[in-house]
């Protein structure tokens, strides 16, 4: 029943730890102007603006979409602000798509961003509350025990995380927009990097970046631009509580259900065989093998073997390359990170991914997660009209 919709324009900023050369609005416009140009349209052709970002406290501006409305050409139009924690980049793309898929709009602009250098993100997330100890251990402190439990149950090779850290940085070196440019990174360097939250080493964790990502999503009768559209073949979101008794934290059911939903919409039975590549939210290297299992690319306990086999590496000619753009491990403007995954999946099926293009890619998965690995957003995009 949903109307067909496609990505016709993509724009991203250069990702960097501190973008002091631009204001918040300037940062967004860098991505938005590129997306509009890519789609061959102007603000006049946009019917609605959908903006997403992670908590307002990252920049210290309350509901910043109010201030950004002018710069985003939203005056006189509907404008929506999405916030679903770390998955928000993906959810924003999905909410934007729903504007078109509902038949209510012909062409919309979706944009997500984070300018963490404007504030102190670590502080923003650790306002003390008395019913928990104040350890300021951050996201790494939260996810490290879950990774440890994965290692215990799968008996994974302890070098798996190191392999992913190297692979994604080498991918990132093919992407001129990536924050970390480490073309010569070695496994030894990763192994020797400081241990932060055991088993997570410094080079196994994502950076903190400023950046923005924008997309133009259009209805079938409003396609534009010189490049082929990336057709949206399925969209799905799932949420579960942060903690409940007996919760499966290593392989969350919300992720499994979300994947099953999006695959069913896109007619996918075997994701490893039927998808050509995937952009998956991997902020800590060990999340690659964990999500390989959660998303059905490998059986439970087998994800790490797939990683070690080189199947997810573009450099090694793997059959199912993951995060050819360098992924979250190479660039992490939190609120935008999910949309970058969705946009990079679209770039692949448009054949427009430059040096990190997977040859002949026709179908790709974009994935985002957030909170305590409890909020999931996914889409499948393809070169073929659904």
């Amino acid at each position, binding site marked *: 029943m949903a109307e067909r919709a496609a990505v016709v324009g993509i724009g991203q900023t250069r990702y960097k730890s501190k973008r002091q050369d631009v204001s918040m609005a300037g940062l967004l416009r860098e991505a938005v102007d590129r997306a509009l140009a890519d789609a061959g349209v102007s603000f006049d052709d946009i019917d609605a603006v959908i903006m997403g970002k992670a908590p307002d406290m990252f920049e210290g501006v309350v509901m910043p979409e109010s201030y950004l409305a002018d710069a985003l050409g939203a005056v006189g139009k509907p404008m929506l602000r999405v916030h679903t924690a770390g998955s928000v980049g993906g959810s924003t793309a999905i909410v934007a798509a729903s504007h078109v898929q509902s038949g209510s709009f012909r062409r919309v602009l979706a944009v997500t961003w984070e300018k963490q250098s404007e504030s102190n993100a670590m502080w923003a997330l650790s306002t003390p509350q008395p019913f928990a100890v104040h*350890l300021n251990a951050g996201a790494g402190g939260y996810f490290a025990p879950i990774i440890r439990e994965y290692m215990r149950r799968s008996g994974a090779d302890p070098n798996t995380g190191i392999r992913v850290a190297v692979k994604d940085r080498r991918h990132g070196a093919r992407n001129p927009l990536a924050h970390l440019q480490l073309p010569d990174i070695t496994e030894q360097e990763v192994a020797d990097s400081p241990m932060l*939250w055991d088993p997570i080493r410094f080079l196994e964790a994502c950076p903190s970046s400023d950046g923005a990502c924008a997309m133009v999503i259009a209805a079938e009768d409003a396609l534009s631009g010189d490049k082929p559209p990336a057709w949206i073949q399925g969209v799905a979101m799932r949420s579960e*509580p942060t903690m409940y008794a007996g919760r499966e934290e290593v392989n969350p059911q919300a992720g499994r259900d979300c994947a099953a939903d999006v695959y069913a919409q896109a007619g996918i039975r075997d994701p490893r065989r039927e998808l050509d590549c995937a952009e998956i939210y991997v902020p800590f290297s060990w999340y690659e093998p964990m999500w390989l299992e959660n998303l059905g690319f490998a059986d439970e306990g087998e994800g790490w073997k797939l990683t070690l086999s080189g199947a997810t590496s573009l450099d090694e000619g793997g059959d199912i390359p993951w995060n050819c753009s360098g992924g979250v491990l190479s660039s992490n403007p939190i609120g935008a990170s999910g949309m970058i995954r969705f946009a990079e999946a679209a770039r692949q099926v448009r054949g427009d991914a430059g040096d990190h293009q997977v040859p002949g890619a026709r179908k790709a998965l974009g994935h985002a997660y957030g909170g305590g690995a409890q909020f999931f957003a996914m889409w499948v995009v393809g070169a073929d009209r659904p």
Partner: protein
Amino acid sequence: MSEDVAVMQAPVYLQYHFTAGRAPTRFLRRLKEGVLSGQRCPRCSQVYIPPRGSCPACGVATEEEVILSDKGTVQSFTIVHIPIPGNPIDPPYVVANIVPDGANISFIHLLSECDNREVRIGQRVEAVWRPREEWTWAMENILYFRPLDEPDVAVERIGTLPVTGLEG
């Protein structure tokens, strides 16, 4: 006049009067007495600590208070190598997910008085409290947890021990 200024500091201060919630307030009052407490879901019978006022799995309000042990089991852990701002503890130190006996869910706390290399999933631990006169309405009343001389708990039994612990 310098043309190079890119950033200026402009701190923003907003003051809030924090309220914990009705269920967390009961929890904090017990903590002031040196007691860990949780609340039981009327539908699925699972015991939550700290209680937030609902069973997140069932979406129903919780009311029944359950007194818990200050002994527990390590569900998982990490060894942190970054110092905590304003905390005298030296890295590396262990942060563990600990399930207290009688509860079905873990909370995060420090694990100390141990060899970091010996910490393991399923290990038995107990709370080390601050001196009684320092107790307040905060989880910091517990300085940290330390290992107990008891056999490890099998992984599938973690999160299911009664308030009486292993013997139960």
